[in-house]
């Protein structure tokens, strides 16, 4: 029996690991292990005011706090019957653009690109590909600037609240970001050409892709979920179609569709389901890279993230140009007449993020459910590793470890979020 083991899975958010066990040339077992202490946020928000939930859940993840704020706000607003003004929805979309830009830039240029070039990390890559690393840092900085301008600070923004925002940023503060965003967009489009020249393993999975239904727009926040195999439901029906289960080797729960099992959410799902809603410029950039849906190669998700960076920058510039700061910052939530349950879904950079809250008449949280994208992808990550693992037989331990890590990083997993739930073990 041979087992491939990496004691620590580098360049993913938080702590996680993978163990692959072989018998001869056959893969016997693949486990993605989450050994980060299980998070208690679902229990932590119970008994607390709904007004605190966006700030608390934002702490689940340091790289995608906006996603948690947006899904939690959407769910609580659903419970309380709050209908946002369209302008507030647009400002939330702009804030989300900032998060996609900075999160994708970190992952593409600092975490995943080194895999494709054989570098152990971004530091080594920066010594020989300095310009692309600097471009990535500049793009990330542009995303952070959006979040700081709207959210009040870059990490764990303080301005979002149930019903809208505590205050509206001055239009001038957003307009002055445009030159930096345009420069970042230019860098992003050039980076796409660089990404197109990387070598991509020849691999395709048989995936069901799930994403938020954003209506006629590329989705950030929505009210429904769709898939490439016929799923078309309201967020309220999530629990009827999805289930979570505990696996012995991980603190994180595994999600599955009740009817069909494992699925994938994230950039590749969005790209495959909503390609026609990207801007024409980004669609054309994808076509020049010979990347059009359907794409079932998870290794090309790094290109899709690059495309989404460019799209989010374009979207942000357009939203800023249309922004006016003369409306109400928030709608005061009504007093809850009775206990009610609300549901919220949004597209975190890593994929669909589902929140459900039961709010009582005193405005306190009685029950919470938070399903992060990484836990939704864990089953597919294990499946991919099982399919890729036979290639490791002929590799050295170090080479096999890098291939396994690269495979896992296709999903940009945020182990810190996989709580509601990584160390690669390859034993030879």
């Amino acid at each position, binding site marked *: 029996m041979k087992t491939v083991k990496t004691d620590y899975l580098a360049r993913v958010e938080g702590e996680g690991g993978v163990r692959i066990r072989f018998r001869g040339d056959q893969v016997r077992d693949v486990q993605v292990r989450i050994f980060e202490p299980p998070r208690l946020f679902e229990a932590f928000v119970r008994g607390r005011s709904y007004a605190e939930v966006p700030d608390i859940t934002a*702490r689940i993840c340091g790289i995608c706090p906006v996603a948690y704020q947006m899904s939690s706000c959407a769910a609580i607003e659903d419970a309380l019957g709050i209908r946002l003004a369209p302008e507030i929805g647009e400002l939330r979309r702009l804030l989300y653009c900032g998060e996609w830009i900075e999160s994708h830039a970190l992952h593409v240029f600092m975490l995943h690109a080194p895999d494709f070039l054989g570098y152990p990390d971004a530091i080594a890559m920066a010594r020989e590909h300095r310009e692309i690393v600097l471009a990535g*840092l500049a793009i990330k900085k542009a995303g952070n600037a959006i979040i700081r301008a709207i959210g009040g600070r870059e990490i764990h923004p303080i301005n979002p609240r149930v019903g809208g925002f505590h205050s509206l940023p001055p239009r001038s503060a957003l307009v002055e970001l445009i030159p930096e965003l345009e420069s970042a967009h230019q860098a992003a489009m050039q980076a796409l050409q660089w990404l197109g020249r990387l070598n991509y393993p020849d691999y395709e999975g048989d995936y069901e892709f799930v994403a938020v239904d954003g209506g006629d727009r590329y989705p950030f926040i929505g009210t429904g979920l769709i898939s490439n195999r016929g799923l078309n439901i309201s967020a309220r029906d999530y629990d009827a179609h999805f289930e979570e289960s505990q696996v012995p080797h991980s603190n994180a729960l595994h999600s599955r569709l009740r009817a069909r099992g494992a699925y994938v959410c994230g950039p590749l799902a969005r790209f495959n389901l909503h390609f026609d809603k990207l801007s024409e410029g980004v669609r054309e950039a994808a076509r020049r890279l010979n990347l059009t849906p359907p794409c079932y190669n998870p290794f090309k998700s790094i290109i899709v993230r690059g495309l989404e960076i460019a799209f989010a920058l374009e979207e942000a510039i357009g939203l800023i140009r249309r922004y006016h700061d003369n409306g109400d910052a928030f709608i005061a939530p009504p007093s809850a007449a009775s206990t009610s349950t609300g549901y919220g879904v949004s597209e975190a950079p890593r994929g669909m993020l589902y929140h459900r809250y039961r709010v009582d008449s005193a405005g306190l949280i009685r029950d919470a459910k938070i399903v992060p994208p990484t836990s939704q992808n864990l089953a597919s990550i294990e499946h991919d590793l099982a399919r890729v693992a036979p290639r490791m037989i002929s590799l050295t331990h170090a080479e096999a470890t890098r291939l396994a890590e690269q495979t896992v990083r296709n999903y940009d997993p945020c182990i810190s979020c996989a709580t509601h739930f990584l160390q690669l073990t390859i034993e030879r």
Partner: protein
Amino acid sequence: MGQQWAGDDGVGLAVIRELRRLNSQLDLVEIDDPARLIELLCEGADPVVIVDAVMDDGPAGRVLLIDCRRGAPRLQSHPLSTHGIDPMQAIELARAAHPGRVASRIFVIGVTIVEASGPGHNLSAPVQAAVARAAARAIAICSPL
């Protein structure tokens, strides 16, 4: 560096508050994102002292001083960061990406913790007890010789 609601992971921010309480003349910056650190290291401050939580196999509440002038060593078996790069990697990335522009004297004051990122405002007792010592260390490093 640190996160406010993440238990002992907020020790860096607690040291900042202690330095403010002491009316320190140091230029104090709170950051959660090591990638932001890359920029700060190139903005002209010298020395730069980074205060952050670290995890090793020992007990919580110790104050470690890491001199990064000749490289940023890995402190533990895995980075204590939810952002994909830790402060040590940020230092080395800054040096690789901006040669000649990075502060020549960089120190990390690491306060050891046992568990990171549990929800809650407060520091554990041993980590809280280390805050004053860490602040004193930062002042000592930055005092003119």
